[in-house]
């Protein structure tokens, strides 16, 4: 700002003719700089023995000496154990079964440890283990090494000891007890029988204790509905492998709907067997993973979804017929499937949830079994809002929180913060000094799940145990241990848990449960209550449409946002939008045009977008970036939770906007108004190409009808090329002479596009296994992401991909082709979607190998394309010559570099690195190695034991992480192996087969059940 004000430094300046001011103005320095003292003394200068030339000689000599000295190797110290634990052998990995239960993700998993450090999450493949690990679970091992974790308990922001904390809490509990003040224990869904028993014990000792369960992402309505019908607060469980017709109304069954974990069962029914596969109809507003995988997707506003659900209900129970022909068709298919059908819904409404239970009961769906209901959500939205009211009224004396961050996740967070001031003592057990822990009286440092004991009931009749895999890194204490102290129980939680498990489970010994990670037991069947479903149906039918609906959802990468400081998850591109490092509002093309919103690409390859302001009730959210989403139902917007956090977060991770502020009444469906804002947002989107433009040979797909009735050459044709002016199958043409590959191992990776749901667990598993660096938002924007494995997502331009192929084939003439093709860059309003995981294809005739000037990349006899990093000089010819674009270049040094302040920049974060895989340096090309460290280790083990390798032993990180069975890895020379059978399958094809690269990764044609 320009200003005419005159600033003066001393009173003297007011005197206009002051000589001092004049002198000072002319002399910048008050005292003369004593230049003469060191330069002006000409005599000593000329007499000095050191001339200018000598000086230069010294410089030269010392530089040379320094560089010579650098040739000497450093002294490396090696410190062995004083007493080596029996089970630890340096260089040999140990696996421990444990269970993650962070209130949002629940899964039985294995933890790979090296020298006592957990470094990777693997699936627990024992029969009966629940839910495969998703991307977040795979990434959770890095959250253990988060440098911003709360390292010791704090009282009023000052470091304290656990003794002080316990004394303070106990005193407060006693005071509350004597005064009759209420004590509230606010936790996330613990699903831990022993912890719940401990809270009960606390209630016995202090009768004023009340336990409130709060899920950041509420499933309250679904829980209420189930409780109403079956009398137990749980979530209905579904086994989609038993369903022939799956109708999902607004439920992202492949995402986080009801806690997720349905992929495996779903994928099982999606692989065509004996000419049959399940049919999946998705009716939804946002484009979800489930919608992307559906055979038929009907975009619909939530209001219309409710009516559709009522129509389905009526059709099943024999009521009035709908006017919507599409819904009639769906209802007919559902009815003809009889007990092989199933309906699920994600509409956040009690009546909708009740209707679904009614429909599944009416058709006696085999996929629906209330007896093994899920116990992973227990939250009660009403009690939570009541709690805030009580706190405001000063009725809560002591508030003890564990695993929740209401200041961040509550829509009425401000109320909560104000109300918290009226609470005498507030305690937050938290891994981070998050928004809540910052303002509570006591921030109790909680351990990571990999440092704690616990038990988890994921389902009825299922009991899991979580065991620590590392000693606590910091001065942390489990909530359970604190509860024991407060109830004056001198036992450690471990002993308590051991006794508890012995009393709960009789089928397995404690050691066996810890070894397996879980145990099962018989449960009493639930009895259905009399519920008036028709009143729910009529209530639901009275829904009034809104001008614009907001559907809040969780992203595959971020979930509820508790792992926001995890760089792997931040850099994980969303499977649908392919945008990383952000959340954004998704909007249909029509609505976008209406509000003048758009996305455009800029010169550096980045995607930009407009901003909007969202208003829900009294809450506004400013500067929300916009992504135009094909398939988004007109009249709806989507926005993901988990972003916009700021506390205990590195600067780079503080991205996105906080959608929880719009989560009124903890309901995911809201009515919203939108206004455009100035400015443009810079996205980090890894895929700008949206459509296949009719290139049907990249993702080959067909319909079940054609698949069943026609020969493979119709739906899976081998591309023809011209050889000596004759059409020849591309597989028979060779530029090079082939080697005999029938001896020894020959590794192949099979990817079934029917089973792949695009969940991205493999992407994170690959990250963890191969020390793939995180590059940050601005580098991702420049297309310098380092993911060895990407999952391409394509939309169709027409209604279907087959339509695209027909459109492209149907063009004639140059102008027509050009126009059609440029049109085809735009996806349809309700496109078909296809996912394709792409990693290095390990071509037998690899184009990269022939152009490397230093032979840094070469082929092995076993089918792997090797990359010798220490030989690479970084010409990047290979990346340019790769038709699959899977090679990644290290533009910078990504480890120990403060410019890339992610996990590889601190000692703690580097503990997650896999010691068997090299950390690449700057200027080096890298790519998928087909997990050669794993195949080598498997071979070595077989050699040591003097036996052949069994099928299933060879695994890559991605194939081991794939819980849907889409990725199968193995040795094709072992004729009995699964992969050898898959390579002979009629659905098998290679990516860009006409190029003649003969890859060792192959895909299976996607079959859609459209009819």
């Amino acid at each position: 700002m320009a200003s005419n004000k005159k600033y003066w430094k001393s009173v003297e300046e007011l005197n206009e003719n002051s000589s001092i001011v004049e002198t000072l103005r002319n002399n910048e320095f008050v005292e003369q700089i004593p230049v003469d003292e060191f330069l002006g003394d000409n005599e000593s200068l000329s007499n000095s023995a050191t001339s200018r030339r000598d000086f230069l000689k010294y410089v030269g000599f010392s530089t040379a000496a320094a560089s010579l000295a650098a040739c000497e190797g450093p002294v490396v110290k090696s410190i062995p154990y004083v007493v080596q634990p029996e089970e630890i052998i340096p260089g040999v990995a140990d696996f421990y079964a444990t269970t993650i239960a962070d209130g949002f993700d629940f899964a039985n998993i294995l933890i790979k440890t090296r020298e006592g450090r957990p470094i990777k999450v693997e699936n627990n493949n024992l029969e009966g283990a629940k839910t495969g690990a998703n991307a977040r679970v795979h990434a959770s091992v890095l959250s253990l090494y988060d440098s911003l974790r709360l390292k010791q308990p704090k009282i009023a922001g000052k470091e304290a000891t656990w003794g002080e904390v316990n004394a303070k809490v106990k005193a407060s509990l006693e005071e509350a007890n004597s005064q009759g003040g209420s004590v509230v224990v606010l936790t996330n869904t613990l699903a831990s029988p022993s912890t719940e028993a401990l809270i009960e014990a606390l209630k016995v000792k202090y009768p004023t204790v009340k336990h409130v369960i709060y899920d950041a992402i509420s499933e309250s309505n679904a829980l209420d509905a189930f409780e109403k019908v079956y009398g137990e607060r749980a979530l209905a469980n579904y086994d989609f492998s038993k369903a022939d017709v799956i109708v999902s109304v607004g439920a992202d069954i492949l995402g986080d709907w009801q806690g997720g974990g349905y992929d495996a069962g779903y994928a099982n029914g999606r692989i065509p067997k004996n000419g049959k596969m399940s049919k999946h109809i998705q009716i939804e507003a946002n484009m979800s993973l489930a919608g992307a995988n559906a055979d038929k997707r009907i975009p619909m506003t939530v209001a219309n979804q409710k009516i559709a659900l009522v129509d389905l209900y009526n059709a099943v129970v024999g009521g009035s017929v709908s006017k919507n022909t599409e819904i009639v068709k769906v209802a007919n298919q559902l009815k003809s499937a009889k007990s092989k059908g199933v309906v699920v819904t994600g509409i956040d409404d009690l009546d909708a949830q009740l209707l679904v239970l009614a429909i599944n009961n009416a058709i006696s769906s085999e996929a629906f079994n209330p007896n093994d209901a899920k116990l992973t959500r227990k939250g009660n939205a009403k009690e939570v809002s009541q709690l805030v009211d009580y706190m405001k009224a000063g009725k809560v004396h002591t508030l003890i929180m564990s695993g929740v961050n209401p200041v961040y996740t509550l829509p009425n967070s401000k109320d909560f913060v104000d109300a918290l001031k009226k609470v005498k003592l507030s305690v937050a057990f938290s891994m981070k000094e998050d928004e809540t822990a910052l303002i509570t009286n006591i921030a109790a440092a909680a351990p990571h799940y990999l440092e704690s004991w616990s038990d988890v009931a994921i389902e009825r009749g299922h009991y899991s145990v979580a065991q620590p895999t590392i000693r606590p890194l910091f001065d942390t204490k489990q909530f359970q241990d604190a509860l024991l102290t407060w109830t004056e129980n001198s036992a450690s939680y471990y002993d308590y848990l051991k006794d508890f498990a012995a009393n709960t489970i009789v089928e397995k010994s404690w050691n066996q449960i810890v070894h397996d990670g879980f145990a099962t037991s018989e449960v009493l069947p639930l009895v259905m209550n009399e519920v008036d479903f028709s009143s729910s149906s009529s209530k639901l039918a009275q829904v009034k449409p809104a001008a614009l609906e907001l559907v809040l959802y969780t992203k595959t990468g971020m979930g509820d946002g508790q792992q926001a400081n995890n760089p792997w998850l931040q850099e994980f591109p969303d499977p649908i939008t392919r945008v990383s490092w952000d959340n954004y509002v998704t909007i249909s093309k029509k609505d976008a045009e209406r509000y003048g919103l758009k996305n455009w690409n800029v010169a550096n390859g980045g995607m930009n977008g407009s901003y909007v302001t969202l208003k829900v009730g009294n809450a506004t959210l400013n500067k929300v970036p916009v992504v135009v989403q094909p398939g988004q139902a007109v009249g709806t917007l989507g926005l993901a939770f988990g972003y916009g956090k700021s506390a205990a977060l590195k600067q780079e991770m503080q991205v996105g906007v906080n959608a929880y502020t719009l989560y009124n009444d903890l309901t995911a469906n809201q009515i919203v108004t939108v206004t455009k804002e100035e400015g443009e947002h810079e996205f980090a989107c890894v895929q700008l190409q949206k459509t296949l433009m009719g290139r049907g040979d990249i993702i080959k797909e067909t319909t079940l009808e054609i698949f069943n009735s026609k020969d493979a050459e119709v739906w899976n044709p081998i591309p023809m090329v011209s050889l000596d002016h004759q059409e020849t199958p591309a597989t028979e043409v060779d530029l090079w002479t082939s080697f005999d590959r029938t001896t020894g191992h020959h590794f192949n990776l099979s990817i079934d596009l029917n089973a792949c749901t695009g969940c991205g667990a493999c992407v994170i598993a690959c990250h963890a296994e191969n020390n793939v660096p995180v590059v940050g938002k601005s580098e991702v924007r420049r297309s310098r992401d380092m993911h060895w494995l990407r999952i391409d997502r394509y939309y169709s331009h027409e209604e279907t991909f087959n339509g695209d192929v027909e459109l492209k084939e149907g063009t004639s003439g140059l102008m027509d082709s050009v126009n059609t093709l440029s049109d085809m860059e735009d996806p349809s309003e309700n496109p078909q979607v296809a996912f394709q995981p792409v990693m290095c294809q390990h071509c037998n005739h690899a184009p990269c190998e022939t152009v490397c000037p230093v032979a840094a990349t070469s082929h092995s006899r076993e089918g792997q394309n090797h990359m010798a990093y220490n030989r690479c000089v970084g010409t990047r010819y290979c990346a340019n010559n790769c038709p699959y674009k899977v090679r990644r270049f290290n533009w910078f040094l990504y480890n120990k570099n403060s410019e890339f302040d992610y996990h590889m920049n601190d000692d703690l974060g580097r503990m997650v690195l896999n010691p068997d895989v090299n950390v690449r340096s700057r200027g080096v090309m890298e790519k998928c190695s087909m997990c050669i460290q794993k195949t080598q280790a498997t071979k070595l083990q077989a050699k040591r034991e003097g036996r052949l390798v069994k099928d299933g032993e060879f695994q890559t990180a991605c194939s081991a992480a794939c819980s849907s069975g889409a990725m199968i890895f193995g040795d094709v020379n072992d004729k009995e192996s699964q992969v050898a059978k898959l390579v002979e399958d009629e659905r098998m094809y290679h990516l860009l087969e006409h190029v003649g690269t003969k890859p060792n990764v192959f895909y299976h044609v996607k079959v859609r059940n459209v009819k």
Partner: protein
Amino acid sequence: MKKVGNHKSFSKIFFSLALTLSFSLSVFSQDSVPTDAAAAPTTGGDPVTGKALFNANCAACHALDKVMTGPALRGVAEKYDIEFLYKWIKNNTELIKAGDATALKIFNENGQKAMTPFPQLSNADIDNILAYTSTTPPPPPTPNPGDVVGKTGGDSGISNDVILGALSLVLAMLIVMLFLVNNVLTKIAKANGIEVQKDEKSLPIWKAFVKNQFLLVVSAILFLLFAAYFAYGFLMQVGVDQGYEPIQPIHYSHRIHAGDNGIDCKYCHSAARVGKHSNIPSLNVCMNCHKNISEVAPETLAEGNEFGVNYNTEIDKLYKAVGWDKTSQAYTGKTEPVKWVRIHNLPDFVYFNHSQHVTVAGVECQTCHGPVEEMEIMRQYSSLTMGWCINCHRETNVKVEDNAYYTKIHEELSKKYGVKQLTAAQMGGLECGKCHY
């Protein structure tokens, strides 16, 4: 005994002979059983047989003059009744159970540690053992002149210096004599009036060299070639630490452990069998033996002098690190992990797995690590360069016997290559990705 080698001087041999003799007379006398009948105990056993029996049965837990797992045993026969000792040694637990007062006293005095019963020993055997334990201790070794002589004799540097000094003196005298002779001759010549011929002033050799273009070019080429050769040699050894022999925090002698005592390498470096690393043994492995071996034998101690090391203080360093109290024979719980200097450092971009070579291929440790059993101080024996690896892979046959993993692949591959025995290279051991990932 240590071998005596490379002794150049006669005196050295003489001195070491004297040293050996003096040692065997003074210090070794501890082991030699005195024949003095007066020292023999009343039991009338034979101390020589007794010593053998003691070493075979008792020495694991007992020493004569030192508390080990069990108490010191010298003079035990004088302390207790012989009948009691028979019973105690044969089955002490029974005695304790029976409530024998002496037995209980002993039991409680020694930390209530049960002693292994030896029912196989006859009374005569026990007599012999007790005869041995009752031998009088040797007088403490007094520093005798033999030691001093031995020490100076052991240092070969002085005698070498003397010889060299004498030689150079002789040479200097020769030069002086030649000079004098020359002077005398010239003087005689002058006196005789003989003209001493003066050399014609010819072209200086360097000028002649510069003028000869051919020679100049050839020598320049030669110079450059040599320079390049040495520069290449210098650059190639950068980062190659063959012969690296760092000083370790504890002077650990592989020569004594693997050589003299013949301990299998994999007893301590057990991870080499199953893992990637051949681990530096954790200190509890050392304590498997060193719980009982707190001092080395005197002759071993003497050997240590040669390397300027006192093995006993090195063992004390181990005790300090592991937190072992020698006197109370118990762990204190205070540990100080040892920071060894790592000798074999492969670059990070190389994956090497010991078990592949040790267990699968059956390669002897010495193939790569050299004669470790002769090394007093461990050093890097091989160059550990890639050329060295590759060379071995080219020359070594894969060990396929009794390994079902290799049966099929070896049969097929050897047919393909037309050889009987496949080398590691033919098996794919030269592929980049086998070691670099």
